[in-house]
């Protein structure tokens, strides 16, 4: 349990997840109110990571459900183990004839079978899928429903039912109620607008790319031992690149990859050639790379000029003289 919003922030930081107050507030409220959280934002800003980290911070087991087009109840909730049922009928064939022994009419026989059919639709033959697992678990769990926007609208409607009362009804068995209300995180890349009904039941969190200061902090935490000036340069460049009109903007994870790569290459500052060679780590489309390259080279030159300017400067002309000139 979290005590305050600051506590959330601190404990997420301990898990190497740097977040602002807005994220911490939502996490705090989700835990306090027992409401699911819908996390939206561009790809690679740490939406899935947030779920994982919260699970770690609260020491909860995590159950993950990856959504995709065509995901249906039998993959997400439960499935009858058809082959096992069949196998059992085969193996119990003798037993069945025993039960049927002495039955004179067809009606009597079928009644006897009917009195036994419960065993074939018991929890023994159910394969629990993530949602059912999360609900029937003995301890509280964190349920991460990843990329919910990839699922079909029907699945979303069905999810709604599970998330609003945390019960699952299996027609043959009855309604299974959650022993502990799971902490639910849904992530979405906005490939599709989620329905209002689902949104209404969730707290909403929009994570955007971090600003320069936050990204520097993330890099310093996640890539220990990296030169701080290099970090600043990297982040500065990445932030500029994000402003360009690209097919795919570099995400935080790509910034991290880049920093790690540069560290492996023993770079201590960003040289034009080095940047050009490693640009494919943060940009994944040829068109994007071409677009960014010219922009970056300009930036790097500018930077080099600034660095040079940092060394002793010529004395500025007397301001008094200037005004005479005007």
């Amino acid at each position, binding site marked *: 349990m979290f005590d305050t919003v600051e506590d959330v922030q601190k404990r997420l930081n301990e898990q190497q997840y740097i977040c602002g107050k807005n994220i911490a507030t939502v996490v705090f409220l989700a835990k306090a109110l027992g409401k699911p959280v819908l996390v939206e934002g561009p790809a690679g800003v740490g939406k899935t990571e947030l779920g994982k980290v919260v699970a770690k911070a609260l020491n909860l087991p995590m159950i993950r459900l990856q959504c995709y087009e065509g995901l249906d109840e039998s993959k997400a909730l439960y499935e009858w183990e058809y082959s096992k049922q069949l196998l059992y009928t085969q193996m119990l064939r003798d037993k069945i004839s025993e039960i049927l022994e002495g039955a004179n009419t067809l009606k009597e026989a079928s009644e006897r079978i009917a009195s036994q059919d419960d065993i074939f639709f018991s929890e023994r033959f159910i394969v629990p899928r993530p949602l059912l697992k999360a609900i029937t678990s003995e301890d509280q769990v964190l349920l991460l429903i990843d990329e919910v926007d990839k699922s079909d609208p029907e699945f979303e409607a069905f999810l709604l039912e599970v998330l609003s009362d945390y019960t699952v009804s299996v027609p043959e068995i009855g309604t299974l109620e959650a022993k502990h209300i799971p902490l639910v995180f849904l992530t979405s890349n*906005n490939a599709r607008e989620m329905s209002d009904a689902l949104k209404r*039941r969730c707290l909403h969190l929009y994570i955007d790319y971090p600003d320069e200061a936050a990204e520097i902090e993330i890099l310093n935490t996640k890539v220990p031992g990296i030169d701080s000036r290099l970090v600043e340069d990297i982040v500065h460049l990445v932030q500029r690149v994000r402003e360009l009109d690209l097919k795919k903007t570099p995400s935080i994870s790509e910034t991290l990859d880049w920093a790690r790569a540069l560290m492996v290459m023993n770079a201590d500052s960003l040289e034009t050639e080095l940047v050009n060679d490693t640009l494919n780590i943060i940009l994944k489309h040829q068109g994007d790379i071409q677009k960014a390259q010219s922009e970056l080279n300009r930036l790097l030159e500018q930077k080099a000029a600034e660095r040079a300017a940092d060394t002793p400067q010529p004395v500025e002309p007397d301001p008094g003289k200037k005004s005479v000139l005007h």
Partner: protein
Amino acid sequence: MQRKIVEFTNILRKAGVRVSVAETIDSFLALDEMSLDDRELFKDALRTTMVKHWDDIPAYDRLFDLFWSGFHDVLRDELGQAVAGMGGDFDLDQLMQQLQELLANMDGDVDLSELARAMLSVDANSLEQLIQQAGEESGLDGIRNMLQIGFFSRRMLEQMGLEGAGENLRDMMEQLREAGMGEDDLARLGDLMKAIQEALRRSVRQYAERELDKQNHDYMERFRRESLQEKSFYNLTEDDLRKMREVVDRLAQKLKNIVSIRRKRQRKGKFDLKGTMRRNMAHGGVPFELIFRQRRKDRPKLVVLCDISSSVSNVSRFFLQFIHSLQECFTKIRTFVFVAELGEVTEIFRNNDIYTAIDQALDGGDVINPYTRSNFGMAFNVFWRDHLASLDNRTTVVIIGDARNNYNDPRAWCLRDMQSKAKNVIWINPEAPGAWGFGDSVMDRYVTYTDVAEECRNLKQLSRMVDTLIL
């Protein structure tokens, strides 16, 4: 507090942010869980419970600032100025202290209204409360336009009883004089009260202006967005065009969802008895694996012929955006543009992002000369000569144009041959059917060889056409 939040939700709703009752209740629950000292936390808590669409976040931020702050500072500012306006040697604290002592001595004798009391003690908090109260009582939330600001501020001042308070204060000053207050101090107090009255007048006016801002937020914007769907393609401004993109995107997304459901339903096949038996021979005929008959996905191939002469280019633009946003619903889209010559621009769409591609395509895309006079007959003839073979019974041909042929030979037989080879020929015409065949329009000649020919002059019609005819 709760009332204040409900009021805030009403304002959000007016600005087009959808907030349900359940969400308001959630926000109450959320606020119970946390301290309200931190303004940022409060803002985040309300946002996460009420605003579920990231598009709405900027609007929320603006409204939050308008609603939850600001006025208090405005009032304080005005009062501060009133005090500062009294001159350098004026000492408010000293005057206040003197006043307090005298008032304490006179206890019971003075009969001051609430407003007068608040003014005397220059108390911004209670003044703010009084102004809010007056706002509510005079129905300020009904304010709709600029012209009403004067009316409502006057009404609020009346409601607050500013005139009465003035009289009240004069009486009070008389009493103070009797109680032995110096003339200098009295004059100063009089000046101060006048200044505060002025400050109040200005603040009330500002209060009304802010209220108007809140109530009217984004109203025009939303109105435009909605009406864009029904605005004729002929009267779009540059600005509209930009906004239209977003609207088209949203419609396309919606359509995609519908189509995905529709497809899914079709895909789910029936139980295949024969297949199941055959597959399970190995298990001694015990049906371990069930086979379902899968239906063949039938995604249409599309050939689009766009007239890019200026009279129809807008229709072409949005149709192209539509179709290419829905790319996954089709197996293949080939796009041709024509004025008099005809050229294929499919490559452009493959290599560029959609907006650049559309702009290029509508500019002739380096394959044709866009600055000629429309000649449908010639364009169809070129298609017939070079591309007729690519049509098959799964291809839908969509032609966008007004069929104004500049009195050239229509060569309708080309279209006839196209129709006989393709699955469908659909003609989208931005002109009303009444005008077909008049003047240089040869639509009447072409109509015979189309499966569907429809008028399409705004977005709504366009999206309906795409939905019913093509998908």
